[in-house]
């Protein structure tokens, strides 16, 4: 992966820059020792690493603002960071950058059940937002599988989704306001406890902008009362096509499950070996979850199983109690861990129209043979967000490159059938150079124009999202101005 050459002028001024940053945060919140900055050299896309010039861990919006003012004045690039779980290299530093990590900013600022909002500092982890309100039977809906670790900051930057977003939406649908610090240190407030923007929907653009428009320090999130209950049903089919048709029929029948998860045979086998959830060995598994009172759950599940039966399932297992429900989810939730046990893998994240599911799965199978690399599929079927996991051997020379080429082909296929490169993980560095397959030059240009407005010097989160060639003019201007 090509990254821009670090600006030698900045590297040469390291000491002077550190000295200025010292004035912004307490001593223990500034890291510049080369051994220690290495802890921040990558995110969950571990194939790419680069230690930054320095790391600051501010505790307040004011400290973030002070740090950004220094970086702005010095022309130093800034990489915002939450918990570093990005799978797209979204938080990958450059050698001439300062990482601003918000992990110490994890306070709950306000909980308001009457108005159904919680206001938090963005370093707070996703799961601990729900943790702060669950004793009162409330929850925060977006639930990425990484929710134990990932921070609201990263969720906002990536517009993260989760298993339950078919019903509750993704981050952008549950985000009501932010406090954001712009590159020049200006503090910017948008939205709040009220709904919808007054003027242009800037909140909508900030969410999903991958840390390139500002550093988000506080967020107002919508919280909801928990449903009375929830229960999954597991169904097995002897072909991907049939499972795909079943998904489409469930949706057309007017049921709106909270989740429809899909796993194919390689994934089922790996999960079974790892988690021993008692999955049947078949070509495709669906886990469909519905919510409500006991009677409501029973009514919806009856409808869903009726539909499933029309497709001759090889297995149909309704959870009778919490224990069985847990076992049904166990395999799915440990899917990534299970794959990690047997191999190195790369997790893709393209979205396709639900109707193209059988075709795309068949093509992926064919490509897998051509490339000689195995693929396991696990994904959110209700919304067409696929997660093909390509297995490779990191120690075998050339395997990573082969895997990346295969991955790129799968993502191009997603675009060809009317879908997109990434449904929830973000572009980062990983899919940056594929952007031209989805967008024409002018469509990328207008997105870059948005960044020009928020961050004219292009200092925030360099070399992400846009192909390097497309953003070159802007980045070169910035270096030339040094």
């Amino acid at each position, binding site marked *: 992966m090509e990254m821009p050459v670090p600006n030698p002028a900045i590297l040469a001024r390291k000491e002077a820059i550190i000295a200025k940053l010292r004035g912004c945060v307490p001593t223990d919140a500034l890291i510049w020792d080369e051994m220690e900055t290495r802890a921040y050299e990558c995110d969950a896309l571990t194939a790419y690493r680069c230690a930054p010039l320095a790391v600051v861990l501010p505790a307040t919006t004011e400290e973030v603002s002070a740090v950004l003012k220094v970086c702005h004045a010095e022309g130093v690039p800034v990489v915002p960071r939450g918990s570093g779980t990005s799978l797209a290299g979204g938080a990958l530093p450059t050698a001439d950058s300062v990482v601003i990590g918000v992990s110490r900013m994890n306070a709950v600022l306000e909980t308001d059940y009457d*108005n159904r909002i919680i206001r938090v500092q963005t370093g707070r982890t996703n799961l601990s937002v729900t943790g702060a309100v669950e004793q009162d039977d409330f929850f925060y809906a977006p639930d990425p599988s990484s929710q134990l670790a990932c921070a609201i900051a990263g969720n906002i930057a990536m517009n993260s989704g989760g298993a339950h977003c078919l019903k509750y939406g993704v981050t952008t649908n549950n985000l009501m306001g932010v406090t954001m610090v712009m590159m020049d240190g200006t503090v910017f407030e948008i939205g*709040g406890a*009220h709904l919808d923007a007054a003027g*242009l929907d800037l909140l909508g*653009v900030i969410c999903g902008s991958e840390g390139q428009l500002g550093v988000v320090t506080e967020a107002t999130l919508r919280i909801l009362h928990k*449903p009375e209950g929830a229960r999954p049903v597991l169904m097995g089919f002897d072909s991907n096509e049939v499972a795909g048709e079943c998904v489409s029929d469930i949706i057309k029948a007017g049921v709106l499950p909270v989740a429809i998860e899909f796993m194919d045979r390689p994934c089922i086998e790996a999960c079974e070996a790892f988690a021993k959830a008692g999955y049947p060995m078949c070509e495709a598994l669906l886990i469909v979850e519905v919510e409500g009172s006991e009677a409501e759950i029973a*009514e919806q599940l009856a409808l869903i199983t009726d539909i499933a039966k029309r497709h001759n399932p090889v297995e149909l297992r309704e959870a009778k109690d919490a224990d069985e429900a847990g076992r049904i989810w166990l395999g799915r939730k440990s899917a990534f861990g299970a794959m990690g046990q047997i191999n190195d893998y790369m997790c893709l994240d393209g979205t396709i129209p639900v109707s193209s599911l059988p075709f795309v799965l068949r093509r992926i199978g064919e490509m897998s043979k051509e490339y000689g690399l195995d693929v396991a599929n696990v994904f959110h079927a209700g919304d067409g967000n696929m997660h093909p996991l390509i297995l490779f051997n990191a120690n075998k020379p050339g395997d990573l490159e082969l895997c990346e080429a295969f991955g790129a082909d799968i993502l191009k296929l997603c675009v060809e059938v009317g879908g997109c490169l990434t*449904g929830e993980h973000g572009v980062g560095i990983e899919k940056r150079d594929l952007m031209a397959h989805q967008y*024409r030059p002018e469509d*990328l240009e207008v997105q870059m124009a948005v960044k020009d407005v928020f961050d004219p010097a292009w200092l925030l989160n360099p070399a992400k999202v846009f192909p390097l060639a497309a953003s070159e003019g802007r980045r070169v201007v910035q270096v030339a101005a040094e």
Partner: protein
Amino acid sequence: MRPETEADLAEIIKGAAGPLRIQGGGTRDIGKPVDGALLQTGGLTGVTLYEPGSLTLVARAGTPLAEVEAVLDAEGQRLPFEPMDHRGLLGRDGVPTVGGMAASNVSGPRRIQSGACRDYMLGVRFVDGAGTVLSNGGRVMKNVTGYDLVKLMAGSYGTLGVLTEVSFKVLPKPEASACVLINDLSETEAVEAMSRALGSPFDVSGVAHLPVGVDGAPVTMIRVEGFAESVRYRSGRLAALFAGRDVTVETDPERVAAGWRYVRDAEPFHAAPGDVWRLSVKPSDAPGLVAASGALQAIYDWGGGLVWLLMPVASDLRARLGGFAGHATLVRGNEDTRRALPVFQPEPGPVAAISAGLRARFDPRGILNPGIMG
């Protein structure tokens, strides 16, 4: 000017000598009056893709909303955000279009549960102020590829570009609905009751309060939708939450629908003289703000988060309210008032600077509905 293709629209904008006043169906005359040549999108029509099993519909911007709704209805689906029809309130006729709805991010009572128009917009095609055809997003439900300009276009009132095509996520229409009605609550009690309903596990899809109901007395409305049994169960549980109050449950589908249309379209104000303002606030702040406003009448929707105010002509609502968290829009007012008062909530400095910067980039000549969002 009424182009019939996107390419013609682009040519018109490219060649425009001065400001353009952009119009879909002309049913939502909201904003500062714009002086410019009329550019209509009503010629760009047609549903270009509808896949019920994928919950996706794509339509050209000038497609009548009614046509989209009919196509969806035939498959038992709908636009979940329940877009308001502004015609009665603004005294307009004409045909609401998909593009007009999207450009003004129009939602209705279900916004509180399901989200706004912007939450269901998956992709857009539009022509910017230089005449370039652009696209963003797509036709799939989950998409974080690049910046989300779809949201930016929603509610931008034509100032960033003229929409030519919009794709939507749609949802199944529920089998049944019911409305729990609580009579004679004060405004503060009503907001508390609505908050209780919204904070319950019963998945309410609408919560409104009319201080002056159809029969003149206050009524609070709580809607549930879904499968028949489930609706019966949840409306029963909700009614039980307010035991001790004067509670009834309306289950006649026609009457439930009519009641919510009444709220959605702010029907009580259709024939009433005066300006109409729309307040978006924290629900618990609403009763205090209504009292401070000196309004002739109010309608609470979204559990109090949205308040419609009927005000004496030319009154400066914002001056009466003082500083408050949220925003106020003058939706109905005569031209003089709309020229004299900001129609949209004035933005704080840094936000205003970003908005101006974006408009300058999307529309360098400042010809698309100039000033409409002032």
